[in-house]
């Protein structure tokens, strides 16, 4: 390129240069962030079913789906918040709070099952809105806000329930309906799993196809640019925390079905596990990039490792080790693809 060439054609020439294979991979991953978790999932499936053919049996895979359902559902809300460059440490605490409030009221006061479910969703939404309000009104970092509300919601849940579990048999059947299953071929699918799939479809649609979704990405990408473009940033953030809270409320319902009880000590590591699923799924912790499908893949990868390694007769600590390495790898890949240039 010489200085006599007009800049436009020089730029065009530059754009037409050959990319190295590595650059092509970088571009591909940049355009489709779910590719890497998808590859990991496929490789994990092949390896684990080779190690122990029972891994690929409908029975075992059905179980994986049920195990993944709760964290998978929480991770939907977590994805929304991480896309806005936030983080939610109170995911599990909100789900437990919503679950214990509605379970206790349904057990003692005889609150009808359907109302108890709606109450759980409302409590989740309110708790999420509180997080969102603290983030937008008081301008506190999401990490600090949700670290605080993690303790607050956990303790309220424990105090209110007196630390006691409520068995599903003492609850209206609607509350544990999510644990009921039906056959699909040789698979057994619970209604909880169906609910999770619906959640992914609904939120995935909202993120990819609506203006609200665009605004969520824009706010996480560059808050100031979003504001200058006329987006009401605080309103978008508040809606994200509220919707995430409602999703945690729905998860409480799925959790009762899965566990067969409402226990205040369930899913204590839900915050870290949901963040793990989101990060392995290729969503950037810096906000503004990632797809919900990746989160689903991320949650499945963790489920595959748990089931696959245990069927291979390996100590469960190797799963913890492998998931830890995957997290670091995923963030490293994210950092790399952020540097993409045309």
């Amino acid at each position, binding site marked *: 390129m010489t200085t006599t060439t007009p800049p436009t054609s020089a730029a065009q020439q530059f*754009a037409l240069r050959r990319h190295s294979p590595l650059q092509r991979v970088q571009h591909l991953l940049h355009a489709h962030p779910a590719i890497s978790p998808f590859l990991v999932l496929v490789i994990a499936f092949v390896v684990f079913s080779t190690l122990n053919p029972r891994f690929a049996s409908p029975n075992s895979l059905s179980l994986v789906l049920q195990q993944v359902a709760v964290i998978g559902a929480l991770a939907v809300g977590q994805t929304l918040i991480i896309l806005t460059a936030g983080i939610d440490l109170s995911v599990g605490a909100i789900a437990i709070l919503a679950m214990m409030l509605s379970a206790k009221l349904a057990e003692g006061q005889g609150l009808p099952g359907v109302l108890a479910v709606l109450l759980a969703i409302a409590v989740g939404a309110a708790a999420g809105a509180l997080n969102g309000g603290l983030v937008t009104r008081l301008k506190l970092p999401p990490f600090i806000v949700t670290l605080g509300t993690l303790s607050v919601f956990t303790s309220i849940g424990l105090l209110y329930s007196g630390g006691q579990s409520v068995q599903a048999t003492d609850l209206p059947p609607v509350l544990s309906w999510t644990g009921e299953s039906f056959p699909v071929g040789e698979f057994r699918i619970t209604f909880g799993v169906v609910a999770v799939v619906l959640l992914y479809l609904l939120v995935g649609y909202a993120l990819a196809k609506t203006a609200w979704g665009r605004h969520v990405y824009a706010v996480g990408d560059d808050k100031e*640019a979003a504001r200058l473009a006329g987006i009401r940033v605080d309103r978008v953030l508040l809606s994200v925390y509220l919707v995430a809270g409602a999703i945690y409320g729905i998860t409480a319902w799925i959790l009762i079905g899965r566990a067969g009880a409402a226990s205040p000590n369930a899913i204590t590591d839900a915050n870290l596990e949901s963040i793990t699923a989101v990060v392995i799924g290729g969503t950037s912790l810096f906000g503004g990039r990632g797809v919900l499908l990746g989160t689903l893949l991320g949650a499945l990868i963790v489920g595959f490792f748990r089931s696959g390694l245990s069927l291979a007769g390996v100590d469960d600590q190797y799963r913890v080790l492998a998931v830890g390495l995957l997290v670091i790898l995923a963030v490293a890949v994210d950092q790399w693809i952020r540097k993409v240039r045309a």
Partner: protein
Amino acid sequence: MTATTHSPGSRPPAAEPAQRTPVLSARGLVKTFGKVVGLDGVDLDLYPGEVLAVIGDNGAGKSTLIKCLTGALGPDAGELFLEGRPVHFKRPQDARDAGIETVYQTLAVAPALDIASNLFLGREKRRRGPLGSVFRMLDQKGMRREAAQALADLGIGTLQNVAQAVETLSGGQRQAVSVARAAAFGSKVIVLDEPTAALGVKESNQVLRLIEELRSRRLPVILISHNMPQVFEVADRIHIQRLGRCAGVVSPSSHTMAEAVAIMTGATTLERTPGHATS
């Protein structure tokens, strides 16, 4: 303004600005911040199809003036007229709705979103029928088509793929996206707030060409800049801010760069330096 200076000059538009209705005019704008006076009674007129540069030292009130014109700040006193009608902007969105678009120096684009999404950010188009009204579905195809058209209109040939993420673009190209966004929606006035401050020489030239392009489309432009050579290259008239007041309005053909800078810094005044082509 003491005297509206203008010159026939070599530039096609702004032939007889004094005889036309200004697109945007401000009268007696005052803005104070406690005891600090930001604007001390500023008048400004922007005529159809012209590029009006606003220059001034730091603290001269350039930014405050622009913020008052674009709704980012409400003036304490004074009036704004858009096409002769009084207007009151409470927030930037009001000015935007009225047809005044602003391009910021900070490259106000969302890097991970594609070009088309950035062009339509904050005013996305939905699909027609129930898909749009009930299911809120975006008209992605339509937005991409219009974005491609908007870029082509401005002669930004290098940005052919509007589905490309903005972060893959250079600074100049990103600013071009901002300018294209402003041009696509700014029906009346485009305000460029130091659009080249974050750019290199080559990229700045790209933006200057876009400004010329806007002028040829008869869109009036207010250009705030520190860069005198750029101002003298594209501006039809130059509004000089000094200490919260307008120290005069000159044009590249009436005054030299040195004279403009002297007025801007207070080394001289417009009265003492009337310029060689002033009528």
